[in-house]
Every structure is written in C-alpha cells, then in structure tokens.
C-alpha cells in the first residue's frame, strides 16, 4: 500500500524469491520456446533481450539516482570489441567475443568512473553523452574500421564447438542465458546491503556519508557494472545483427535506452526486458504499418506511459499486487 511507486525508487526487498522464480521460469520457457518461434520472432526476442541487458545496467544507475545519456559508449565498445576480434583476429567464438566486450567496456568504465562518480543529475547525463559522442567521432574518422559504414562480424563457434547451421539458435540461447545471469545477479545485488545503498544514495547522499559509507565508491561500482552490462549487450547485438557501426555510440542510441528504461520502470529486474521487448515490437510494427509516422507513435506511447503509468509499464504488475 504505502510502498513507493515513483519511477526511480527501489522495489521492496519482499518478493525477491518470487522474482527469482519468475526468472528461472522465464529462462526455461524462453529456451524451449525460442526454436519453436518463427525466425523473425526469435531474432526480435534475441535483440530485445540484449537491449534488456543494456537497460538493466541503466536501471542499476537509475536506482542510484543517475541517468546516463551515454550508455551508447559501452554498448558500442562492446560491439566493436566483439567485431574487431572477428574482423582482425579471425576469432569468432561467441564466448571469447562476449568476454572481450565485457572486459573492454568494464575497463573503460573503471577509468572514466573515477571522474563520473563525482557528477550528478543532468551533468552526469551530459558528460557521459560527451564521452560517447567523442567515441562516435573517433570511429567515424577511423576508415580502418569502416568509418560510418562499420563492418560485419559473425559467430562460428561456441566455446570451440563449431556451430554451422546452429549459429542462430546458439546465439539466441546464449543471449537468454546471459540475460538470465545478468538479471539474477543484479537482482541479488540489489537486495544486498551494497544494493540497498544505491536506493539510499538516490534518496539522501548526505545521510549515507554521515552513516560512514562512501557514496563515490558505490556509484563507481554501479557505474562499472552497468557499463559491463551495456558492453555484453552491445556484443550480443553486434553478433546477432552481424554488423557494427558508430551509430551505436550516437546520442540517440543512448536516448533510446533511457526511453526504454523509463518506459519499463525500475520496479524489478524483469522490467527492462519486458520494456525492451514491448518497445521493439511496437517499433517494428509501427515501421511496417505506418512507415511515415512511427516516430509519432513512439512519442505518444511514451507520453501516455509517463502520464498514466508513472512507475513505468512495470507498475501494472505491482499495482495488481496491491489490489
């Protein structure tokens, strides 16, 4: 009843086990259902889950009270890490590529984190935006990486096992599992002390410092985690799409992630994935059935959600629980 229902707040620790159950349920359902779906649906789900992973990172930041308009930086780095492995070193093992994605994104975030952990509100958003736009500029200038055209990549093996015909399914299953691990991990993290601190910092940094905890360290940690998630998401999308280009670092890409995060709400680790799936579905059908006004449709959807579901789409579920 009196549990907060505003966009960026923490969810109550209660119901944790329920979330875990749903996660495991979703894992099984998705793994089984995937191959039975038409290829386009499996693909859309594949992309949506990858984006969901990126947005999960956004959510973690939002729980800490920060909104990044530059997650594209890590999304793009992750994709290019996987891409360059394939393109220049002929390594096209899904696991190795994803590992590269996480490491590169995480490493860069660790360095930038020292700086960004000092920033809040719009300034955090803007500085992160600046960094991702700088990467965009650098990539556009780098003709060795195909400039704005980018370059192609694909996965051939999984942990050394050749895939051949099974590339799509393997990719999909990997994505599902990665998404699950990410969601489960973040869920556990959020219900840990460290995770609770996120919500506390968001509410009142001063008090956190006056309780003797370092706000900057928490923020730095969460920033790196969110970057790693964006990185792996980018790697997955890169491999799934089979192509990477600088657009991934452009501010509108980051904007879309914020868009999805707000759309979904931060009430649960399940929200980002739900949000991404709905967003991708709405977008793709809008493209198809009204190619001239799909932006209008997205915009209106966004406004409706903000006005009538302040907690994001997720609040539909929490509300039902309260009733």
């Amino acid at each position, binding site marked *: 009843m009196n549990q907060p229902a505003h966009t960026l707040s923490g969810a109550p620790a209660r119901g944790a086990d329920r979330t875990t159950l749903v996660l495991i349920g979703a894992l099984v359902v998705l793994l089984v259902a995937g191959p039975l779906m038409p290829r386009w649906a499996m693909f859309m789900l594949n992309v949506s889950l990858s984006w969901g992973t990126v947005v999960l990172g956004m959510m973690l930041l939002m729980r800490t009270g920060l909104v990044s308009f530059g997650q594209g930086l890590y999304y793009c780095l992750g994709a290019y890490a996987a891409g360059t492995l394939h393109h220049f070193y002929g390594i096209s093992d899904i696991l190795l590529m994803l590992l590269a994605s996480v490491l590169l994104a995480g490493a860069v975030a660790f360095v930038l984190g020292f700086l960004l952990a000092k920033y809040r509100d719009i300034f955090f958003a803007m500085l992160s935006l600046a960094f991702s736009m700088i990467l965009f500029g650098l990539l556009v200038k780098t003709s060795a990486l195909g400039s704005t055209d980018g370059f192609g990549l694909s996965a051939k093996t999984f942990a050394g096992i050749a895939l051949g015909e099974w590339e799509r399914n393997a990719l999909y299953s990997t994505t599902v599992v990665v998404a699950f691990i990410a969601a489960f991990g973040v869920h556990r993290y959020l219900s840990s002390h460290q995770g609770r601190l996120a919500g506390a910092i968001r*509410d009142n940094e001063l008090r956190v410092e006056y309780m003797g905890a370092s706000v900057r360290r928490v923020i730095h940690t969460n920033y790196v985690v969110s970057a790693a998630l964006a990185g792996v998401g980018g790697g997955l999308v890169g491999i799934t799409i089979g192509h990477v280009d600088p657009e991934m670092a452009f501010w509108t890409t980051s904007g879309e992630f914020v868009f999805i995060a707000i759309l979904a709400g931060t009430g649960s680790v399940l929200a980002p994935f739900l949000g991404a799936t709905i967003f991708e579905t709405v977008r793709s059908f809008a493209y198809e059935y009204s190619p001239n006004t799909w932006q209008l449709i997205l915009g209106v959807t966004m406004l409706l959600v903000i006005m009538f579901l302040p907690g994001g789409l997720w609040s539909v579920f929490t509300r039902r629980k309260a009733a």
Partner: protein
Amino acid sequence: MAVVLEAKDLNKAFGAVTAANNINVRIDQDSVVGLIGSNGAGKTTFINMVTGYLKPTSGTIRYLDRDITGMSPRQITQLGICRSFQIPQLFGNLSVYENLQVGVGIAARSRRAAAGARGHEREEIETLIERFNLGGYRTHSAGLLPEGTRKLLDIAMAVAGRPQLLLLDEPTSGVSADEKFRLMDMVMTALKVQGVTVLFVEHDMEIVSRYTHRILAFYEGRIIADGEPAQVLREAEVRRYVIGEHTPAHGDADGGATSHG
C-alpha cells in the same frame, strides 16, 4: 574524566558574517551537554564543523586526542561521532525498516564487525525499532511519516552508528509541546543503555535544564556562558541574548549565517 571532544580557538567566517568566534571547549566522556542560543548564534555551525560538514577558518578540533579538523563527515563518522539533523535526513523512498537496515548495515561494515554481522544486524534493527518505538511504522516509507516520528527515526539512524559522541541538532524542533518530553525520554533512555556522550542543540529551556549536566550558551558565534544548567540560565547575558527578553534581529540565520556552506 577523559575528554571526548576538544575545540581550540575555533573560528568560522562566511564573508562578513562570523559564525564561530574563537570557540574553546572540552567535552567530557558520558556527559550530556546542551547547546543554547538564538537563531544564528552559531550552534549548528559548531556541530557542522565538528562533524566535518564545514571546515573551520582557523583552529583545531580534537576527538579522543586525535586531530579531526578538516576530515570528511564519513571519516569522522567512522571514528564514532554521529549526528542527527534539524531537518531529518532520511531515505524518503525506503521504509523505516530499510532506513535502519542501511544505517546498521553501514555501521556494521565500517566497524568491520566480522562476527556474524547479518544475525546481529537484524537484532540491532529490532532493538532500535523497539527503543524508539517505531514498531508501528516498520513498512511505512520514511517520506510519509509524521514530523515527530521522522525526528525519532533521524535520531535512531544516528544512534545506529553506535557512536561514542552523538550530536543532536534541535531534536525537538517541529515536535508538539506534549510530545517533546516523551521524545526526549525515549532518546535519553536509549542512549543511557549505550553509554554515549551527547551534545544537543535545544531552544526549550525546560528540556535543556531537565536533561543536561552542562550548558553552552552561544551568541554571535561566541560561547557567552558555560556551566551547570541552573547557573548558566541565571546569568544576565544569557537571559538577555538567549532566553530573550528581546529577540535579536537575526532572522532565520542558522540558515542565513551558513547558507553559503
């Protein structure tokens, strides 16, 4: 008796305004000290300097023979000085329970109380809830609590840090007259159990004289009187400037004085 806190020649100026003027004071272990003075007299400034929110312009602050001048609030807290706030500083979106959970959690970790922290934490939270009688509000989010309860929770949070020195900034402000004593009783019993040195800012002279062993009277950043409550409250200066036969024209300058801080 051992000295917990010692301020030497403490000065703090905001441009033209002097918020602390050559303050020298020693606080003994286990004493309960009241800080009185009209608004803008420099009480909160003093607390803010002790707890690291403000850097003194000059002078030193020692805590248990250790110079803490210019340390960050976090470091100071970790040394065992905790505070409550004039405007309660809570985690408005978290429930009362979660607020204490965070507080106790941090304290437990910074104390490196390895010994089965988890179990202990839960008990500690319960103890606090019971001592500050917050039982009825467990799941309410702190942002929606009545003023008095917010004060209680704010103090409980400070106590959660297991401080040796506790500073309370106007614990009873915004609390209805009939509630004040109930609140102070609760706080004091809660603290007795822990054996804590307490400094608190208070405007209500009844409360000061009832709960303190010693009073520091502030006026324009100076300590104009220091001693037994009864005796201090008798002093002419104090009666004029603090208890206020006339109220000095400083406006709400506990804000004013430090608003640049």
